[in-house]
């Protein structure tokens, strides 16, 4: 069985600044939901860009399904952070999702029947098929997020990468999003990065912390030292509204 993600001693620098430091990480299971948390500016988006092959680390090796990222792109679905998008863009939901098929269709060709089938199926999975003729600006934030997930699903990925998928969503929409990811994780490996600790919900199977360095213990529990090393301040994690402390008390200025 091939490893989904394999990073060996990965370093990324912008100028003199080290963004990612000596990251070693393996994700073996072909399904499940991994949440990567870390503060803003901690290198989460950089980490995703390395996985997507958009950014070359200056040291170390990156492999997805045993191949370098540029070679494994047809197995990876990507849901970017949708801040800063131009939602006035003259494009319909249907056209957006079809762009997820563009590498399958081939250059200079029209979209084929099977591309349209894949797009339809993807839209039905996220329950957005009835909105297919809407211009994307005419959707709510949560609906738009699902359209971007459908676009990623249209590629038939084995690995789904999401960048801050919960930002800008109200608690109800976030909950819907997690239930959708919970369904998707049965069929593929899902990796989500977020700065929002409360996003680490009941549905996350494994958790990692990222702030320049990477902490991963192949489990759902985060040792409090890791969390504090990541956020560089005392953090209390109280998960999904259940009124009990998940982590031990920490001492101020110890």
């Amino acid at each position, binding site marked *: 069985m091939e490893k989904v993600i394999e990073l060996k001693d990965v370093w990324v620098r912008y100028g003199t600044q080290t963004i990612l430091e000596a990251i070693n990480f393996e994700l073996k299971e072909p399904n499940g939901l991994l949440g990567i948390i870390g503060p803003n500016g901690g290198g989460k988006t950089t980490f995703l860009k390395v996985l997507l092959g958009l950014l070359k680390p200056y040291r170390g090796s990156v492999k997805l399904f045993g191949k370098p990222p540029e070679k494994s792109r047809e197995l990876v679905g*990507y849901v970017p952070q949708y801040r800063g998008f131009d939602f006035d*863009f*003259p*494009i319909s939901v249907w*056209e957006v999702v079809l762009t997820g098929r*563009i*590498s399958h269709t081939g*250059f200079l060709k029209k979209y084929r029947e099977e591309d349209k089938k894949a797009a339809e199926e993807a839209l039905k999975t996220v329950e957005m098929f009835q909105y297919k003729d809407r211009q994307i600006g005419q959707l709510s934030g949560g609906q738009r997020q699902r359209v971007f997930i459908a676009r990623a699903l249209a590629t038939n990925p084995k690995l789904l990468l999401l960048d801050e998928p919960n930002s800008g969503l109200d608690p109800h929409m976030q909950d819907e999003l997690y239930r959708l990811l919970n369904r998707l994780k049965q069929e593929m490996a899902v990796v989500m990065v977020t700065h929002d600790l409360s996003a680490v919900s009941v549905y996350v199977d494994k958790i990692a912390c990222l702030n320049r360095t990477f902490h991963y213990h192949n489990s759902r529990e985060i040792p409090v030292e890791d969390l504090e090393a990541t956020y560089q301040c005392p953090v209390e994690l109280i998960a999904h509204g259940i009124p009990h402390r998940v982590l031990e008390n920490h001492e101020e200025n110890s």
Partner: protein
Amino acid sequence: MFDFLQYSFIQNALAAAVLASIACGIIGVYVVVKKIVFISGGIAHASFGGVGLGYYLGINPMFGILPFSLLSALVMGTVSKKSKIPEDSAIGILWSLGMALGIIFVYLTPGYAPDLMTYLFGNILTVPRSDLYFMLVLDIIILGAVYLFYKEFLALCFDEEFTTVQGLPTEKLYLFLLCIIALTIVVLIKVVGIILVIALLTIPASLSRKFTHNLKKMMLISIVFGTVISVTGIGLSYALDVPSGATIILVLSLVYGFAVFGMEILESRRNSGA
């Protein structure tokens, strides 16, 4: 009343207006939705170097503009994507570099540079028939490219990063789009001139955006707008004996201003529940 239509220079002008409106209607939509107005302006202005080169070599300046605008599209696209210079600074530098080269070439050319002004400000009433054929060929190339690359250009303009992740060569695709924009600029230069080209690339497309959310319909609507307005402009400039390029831009700006203003009034009335 329509007897002025008999003049062959008027017929040529109308044909040029239609050919220019087709090119700018289609490509202007990409310029507007991808927000590359500034780099397009840069390509247009830098291509003045080609005008100068044409005079210097003693060939039809149109054949100087063509390679020069393509070259400036490639250089600007590459520099703005690859180098660490901020994109707008890089464009600003190349913009003026091209114009400076043009001025030097014109200066070095012995004798007087005839109709230099028509390349800067356009004069649709003096378009010769040979230039019309040249514009027609460029129109066919532009239409063919957009027909073949429609889905790739749409994906590129909407979300360049995602399209790269899909494994498409987005950098080459972007350079190709800039080259098509360069060809469009060559088509438009005779109509409104280098200085005013950017108006034809932005105004009809921006106006059509107010009426539809579909890229293909936007293209069709902006072709119609472009044609109607430039023909109106030609008529006005003939009747009032004022420069044609500037008149076309004035009419375009006025129509755009009234349309946007009118729509905003309508919208605020609707929102206030009247």
